[in-house]
């Protein structure tokens, strides 16, 4: 079985979409699929091909980028050429960045199409850009989604709220965790270090609640991983954005993760208990009193005592960590997600 995966960006650019595509490509190749990836590359001058990690990768050059969207009128012809040569059984296009999706519309209809949709609306709050995006989302996007044989959503939010019209032919496959990379260390880190991962400029993440909570716990230190300017407070270190091995190191030298956004599954895979607010999707990841603690949002006192509970009883902390690792392996490994993806692709034939 041969699949052609089209994505606007790929390695060496890093990001959620790139990681998702790479895991799917590696995973499908491992279970015997023939995988071809086509991506845009801002450094490419001409179309190139290479063999990487068991799959073929084509890089396409492009002329300009508008609002993170690579644009080049030659892409449809290039993609057609590659499809003609590689003869994939099925095509998998990754969006919302529309460039590859548009190019895919020019590929003859006999190749089945599966669209993977990563985020909700691309609207950004800038008038002109939003106008263009609204036009796209009202015209070309429905055309693409109607043409698609099935749709994979990277989160249930996308499926339930944004792509409601296509609910019948869509399914959710959330990104997994690389449970081979994110593993617990053998030795317990010294000290009482907490780690927070996420874009903390966003007030909804509640870093300020955490900062005031730890003021009363003087021997607790906090590493803040993510984008945003440095704040000054004793006990706190800002590390900037970390991914992969660097993120692993940050997680493994801390004793617990607090108020997470999307890193909870990674932290659990590392055997870290997670403290989160009982809000949104977080409640679905943490089981209170088993692999972490849930506190009411914006409640400094509750957060403070939760941190205190974990740090005062090492046995409880270790037990939560082990339970978290088990859950990550059971529910967040890529293996099941790869077989789900393979099933969707096969069904499209």
């Amino acid at each position: 079985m041969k699949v052609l995966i089209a994505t606007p960006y790929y390695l060496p650019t890093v990001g959620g979409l790139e990681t998702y595509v790479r895991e799917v490509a590696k995973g499908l190749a491992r279970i015997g699929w023939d995988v071809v990836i086509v991506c845009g590359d801002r450094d490419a001058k001409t179309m190139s091909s290479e063999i990487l990690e068991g799959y073929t990768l084509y890089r396409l050059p492009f002329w300009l980028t508008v609002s993170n969207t690579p644009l080049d009128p030659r892409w449809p012809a290039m993609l057609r050429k590659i499809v003609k040569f590689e003869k994939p059984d099925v095509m998998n296009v990754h969006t919302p960045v529309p460039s590859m999706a548009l190019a895919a519309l020019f590929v003859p209809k006999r190749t089945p199409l599966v669209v993977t949709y990563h985020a909700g609306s691309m609207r950004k709050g800038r008038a002109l850009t939003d106008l263009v995006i609204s036009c796209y989302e009202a015209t070309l996007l429905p055309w693409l989604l109607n043409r698609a044989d099935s749709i994979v959503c990277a989160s249930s939010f996308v499926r339930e709220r944004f792509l409601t019209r296509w609910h019948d032919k869509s399914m959710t496959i959330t990104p997994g965790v690389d449970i081979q990379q994110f593993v617990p260390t053998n030795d317990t880190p010294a000290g009482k270090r907490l780690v927070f991962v996420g874009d903390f400029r966003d007030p909804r993440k509640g870093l300020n609640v955490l900062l005031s909570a730890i003021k009363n716990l003087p021997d607790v230190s906090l590493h803040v991983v993510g984008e945003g300017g440095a704040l000054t407070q004793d006990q706190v270190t800002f590390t900037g954005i970390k991914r992969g091995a660097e993120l692993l190191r940050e997680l493994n030298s801390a004793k617990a993760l607090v108020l997470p956004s999307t890193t909870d599954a990674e932290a659990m895979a590392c055997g870290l208990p997670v403290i989160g607010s009982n809000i949104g999707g977080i409640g679905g990841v943490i089981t209170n009193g088993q692999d972490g603690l849930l506190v009411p949002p914006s409640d400094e006192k509750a957060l403070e005592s939760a941190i205190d509970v974990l740090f005062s009883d090492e046995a409880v902390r270790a037990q939560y960590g082990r339970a978290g690792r088990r859950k990550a392996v059971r529910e967040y490994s890529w293996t099941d997600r790869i077989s789900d993806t393979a099933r969707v692709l096969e069904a499209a034939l």
Partner: protein
Amino acid sequence: MKIAIVSDSIYPYHKGGKETRIFELSTRLAKAGNDVHIYTMKWWDQPGRIRKENGVTLHAISRKYKLYSGGRRSMVQGVLFGVACFRLLSEPFDVVDVDHMPYFPLFSMWIVCRLKRKPMTATWHEVWGGSYWRDYLGHLGFIASLLERLTVRIPDHIVAVSEFTAERLETILHSQKPITWIENGIDTAAIRRLKPSKQTSDVVFVGRLLSHKNVDVLIRAVAILTRKRPDITCLIISDGPERPQLERLSAKMGVSDNIVFTGFIEHDVDKFRLMKASRVFAHPSTREGFGIVALEALACGLPVVTTNHPENAARYMITPEIGRICKPTPQSLARAIESVLNDQDLRDTTEVARSFDWRVSARALEKVYAR
């Protein structure tokens, strides 16, 4: 360092000694941290003019023209590929290494390098000279040999693949440019890992059975050796048009029981196993450009007996510690084989082979480029 290599034919799309050399060296240069680009014809079928393989970037500067027409290198292909080399005008590079075949690229690359003010290195695999060219091409051979003489004046630095080629560049083509000879290598580690075959022998020969390989001399030498050593065994590996005559000869000399013709052996590994189960490598050839089999024999731990013929490049590798050089006559060859079989003071030949390491050659080449 950004290294550009210009060669119209590449491994694994076209297999030969030259292609293997470029492959082994370019991948090692890339591994050492260089940005290596090979400019060639579009050998691959995948769309796109660029292809990355084993850390090296391949650029198609022309479509795939036929290399041979009527059994000979095509002149048209040479000219077209030569013109295509002007594409390197828009390519950034620190040094360029141009394959001397098919000569025309050297002219266009000379212009490219002058305009870009970059040093130009050329790699010479073999020197043919006037008489050989006349045999190969007839009247046109005169023009070709003139081209050959002209092109040695173009590069700033010449890399010869053997001391033999380096010598001929000076004596036959009268090259005035600095010449560095950087030999081919061999993967000694891979050979060392192989288990010797169960089929043991005293003497082994490897090569196509062609008249200039002088296998008849070896058979006669074995006949002489049987007087002292009636049980001596000699393995003749590979095949060729001379085989029936050679088999008749060995029957006539009464050594059919001593000599075994293995026929063509498909996998190198099996060939190396048989060599490792032998004691001396007989290499009576009178014409070798580099003599890669002699090197393979050393890597298999065999002392090598070869001839002192002027067109045999293999003789440059052999010293009394690792073999013998003899005249291409049965008596001389028999004496040399006997002497090696009795010699207790031979060095470990694999050590010598190890100095013909692709890694060593790649480092030497890197030094030439860095100049």
